[in-house]
């Protein structure tokens, strides 16, 4: 008999090699995964880092406002910081976080085993992520809309295009999933409200992003070659800036609104009434997409001086139609959502309410998004004199911070399906209050100082406005703390011990809570037939009825 003896050193080395091999295989598996939950988590991780970046830059710019006559930061870096803030708010956080929720949660809500075109969704993520890195490189090296390095300005334009195409590719996967992979019996009227909001968002992306990319093609070619038709690098914001302001940001916040609509009936233990009307409300917010593709930064009311007099009625109607369509219709959509939400929350005898951290966060988020939309309604009225003030920046901050809070709510709500554990509820509730306080302080003081005439940018003439700017700095700092703590809590949850809350910890109504927590790679062991918008609630009620009749 031959005995092969392995020395302890060799065994340790072999074991170490195997460990590193397993680690690399695991990393490669993650990076090339076609599992929608993993793709969604990649987007979520990237979006949260982008959000951290956006809030940190916003806080830095708020520091700059502490001196109204000079520069606190390096004045040469300010143009890049201003660009970085806009890009990080929209492309770095709002868009990827919205896409993350859609990719991670929609297929499982549909009762589907996988997302449609999973490789397209993964490719979209890497294009977005690559674009984000390149945008950072370009801005650090004096690129951007006010940069002096020509090659870096070109790189900046390319990076925007990459991010836009990446997000569009993934949105294509989401939209196709909703249109083709619904469980048997799940008509479009029976899809969960969050899924409906994801559909409106995805189709809106398909309408908006190609227009943006087409404009970027011109900007790139013109900047690279002639620089005569589009104003060089300073023209980038004139021609393409509409995507990083309102109403485009309304469109990107729609999934965040869908989160609250999804959690509302679970919180108040009711079925959703007037489902068609609720869906119409969400779709109305999507009208913002058409406002965006008109490529104007502002659908305003230029009635300077004439106010409500009967002069020049025809011109006033011409101004009023686009203004109402792109500014008021989304607000009307929000109002519809709010009215139906109030109907759901209307107290009745014996009503049980299950207020979760997910509900509180998404409720606060919805509120901030609404505040941002209302702000845009006022901002666009010329006679109020808000244009060119800090007011516009505050509306964008309100929408992005609101959406970020709602995303935190979504993660808190669906975390059991992603990694099988909940996030500490008490800590999240405290965090919700902290985040809401931060968001309010980051936004409202600039709403007020906007009315008081504080110019946008680092220099402003009225030193008495300093107090408002200090409050804004406090607000951004609190929100930064909120994001950091949320990331820590999320990481702790993913690495923590299993909590024995079962597959349906919130006593929910929709299909995704029927599978195990965490959901397996292909979501469901079998395909279910649904007969109503709340299949799980049907099942619970029929089980209860059967138990009673047996008793």
């Amino acid at each position, binding site marked *: 008999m031959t005995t092969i003896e392995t020395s302890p050193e060799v065994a340790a080395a072999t074991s170490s090699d195997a460990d590193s091999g397993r680690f690399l295989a695991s990393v490669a598996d993650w990076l090339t995964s076609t599992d929608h939950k993993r793709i969604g988590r990649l987007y979520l991780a990237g979006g949260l880092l982008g959000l951290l970046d956006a809030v940190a830059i916003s806080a830095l710019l708020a520091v700059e406002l502490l001196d109204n006559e000079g520069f606190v930061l390096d004045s040469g870096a300010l143009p890049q910081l201003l660009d970085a803030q806009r890009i990080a708010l929209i492309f770095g956080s709002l868009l990827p976080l919205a896409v993350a929720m859609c990719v991670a949660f929609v297929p499982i809500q549909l009762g589907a085993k996988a997302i449609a075109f999973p490789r397209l969704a993964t490719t979209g993520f890497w294009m977005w992520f690559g674009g984000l890195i390149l945008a950072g490189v370009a801005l650090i090296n004096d690129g951007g809309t006010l940069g002096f390095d020509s090659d870096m300005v070109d790189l900046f334009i390319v990076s925007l295009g990459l991010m836009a195409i990446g997000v569009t590719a993934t949105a294509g996967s989401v939209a196709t999933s909703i249109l083709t992979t619904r469980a048997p019996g799940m008509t479009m009227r029976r899809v969960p409200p969050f899924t409906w909001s994801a559909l409106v968002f995805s189709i809106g992306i398909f309408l908006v992003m190609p227009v943006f990319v087409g404009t970027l093609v011109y900007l790139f070619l013109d900047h690279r070659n002639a620089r005569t038709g589009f104003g060089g690098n300073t023209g980038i914001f004139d021609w393409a800036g509409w995507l990083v302001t309102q109403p485009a940001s309304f469109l990107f916040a729609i999934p965040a609104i869908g989160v609250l609509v999804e959690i509302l009936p679970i919180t108040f233990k009711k079925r959703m009434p007037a489902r068609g009307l609720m869906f119409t409300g969400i779709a109305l917010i999507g009208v913002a997409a058409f406002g965006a593709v008109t490529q104007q930064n502002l659908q305003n009311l230029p009635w300077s001086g004439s106010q409500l007099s009967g002069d020049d009625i025809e011109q006033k109607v011409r101004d009023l139609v686009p203004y109402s369509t792109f500014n008021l219709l989304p607000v009307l959509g929000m109002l519809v959502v709010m009215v139906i939400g109030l109907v759901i929350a209307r107290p009745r005898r014996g009503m049980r309410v299950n207020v979760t951290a997910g509900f509180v966060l998404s409720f606060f988020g919805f509120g901030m998004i609404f505040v941002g939309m209302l702000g845009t309604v006022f901002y666009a009225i010329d006679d109020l004199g808000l244009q060119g003030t800090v007011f516009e920046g505050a509306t964008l901050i309100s929408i992005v911070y609101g959406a970020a809070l709602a995303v935190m709510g979504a993660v808190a709500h669906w975390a059991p399906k992603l990694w099988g554990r909940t996030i500490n509820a008490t800590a999240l509730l405290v965090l919700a209050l902290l985040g809401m306080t931060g968001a309010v302080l980051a936004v409202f003081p600039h709403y007020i100082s906007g009315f008081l005439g504080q110019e946008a940018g680092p220099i402003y003439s009225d030193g008495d406005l300093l107090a408002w700017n200090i409050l804004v700095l406090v607000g951004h700092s609190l929100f930064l703390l909120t994001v950091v703590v949320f990331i820590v809590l999320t990481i702790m949850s993913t690495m923590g011990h299993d909590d024995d809350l079962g597959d349906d910890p919130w006593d929910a109504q929709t299909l995704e809570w029927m599978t195990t927590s965490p959901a397996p790679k292909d979501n469901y062991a079998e395909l*279910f037939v*649904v007969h109503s918008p709340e299949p799980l609630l049907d099942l619970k009620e029929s089980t209860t009825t059967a138990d009673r009749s047996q008793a």
Partner: protein
Amino acid sequence: MQALPAGAAPAPQRQMLVGVSLAVVAMIMITGSMLAVWSLQRTRAIDEIGSWLPDGVTIPEVATNVMLLAFVGICVFAQWAVYSAKRADHGHATFALASTAFVAVLVINAQAFVYQEMGLGISDGTYAAMFYGVTGLFMVLMIIGVVFSAVTAFRYMGGRVHDHEIVAAHAIYWYATAAVFAAIWFVVYVTK
């Protein structure tokens, strides 16, 4: 907990048709937006300097008209492929797909000829940059279409003869590309 009743095997999902339809929406939006900006810049240029097409530049209209006519052929061949695939006529379906790709390559060749005849440098001003932007996008769409035709044909030849959906999606793509080129032809080559 009880489970909901298990469903039957899923129905055909038509994912390819829906996906290509979304891609077509994107294609129409990007071309439409580029042509809208083109028209805006053209109007501005005419108002400011009286002309849009640079002096000495002539568009070879025969080639551009032939490109438009070629799209009639592309659409007919693409539809022929759908017709044949539905009737399990493998030979005709494969031939129609190959013909579609071949005519598409001819269109790409014609566009290259247009570039050469016009002799326009990309740095020669706003018109040149925008001209190469619009037509360059069109070339990208054509190349994607040729690859789509090739993939469809190879899948078909490889034995996936019951996969009619991809052949129909392929036809939808080419119809949309034909519409896109018709718009480019009118705005860029006819209106000038």
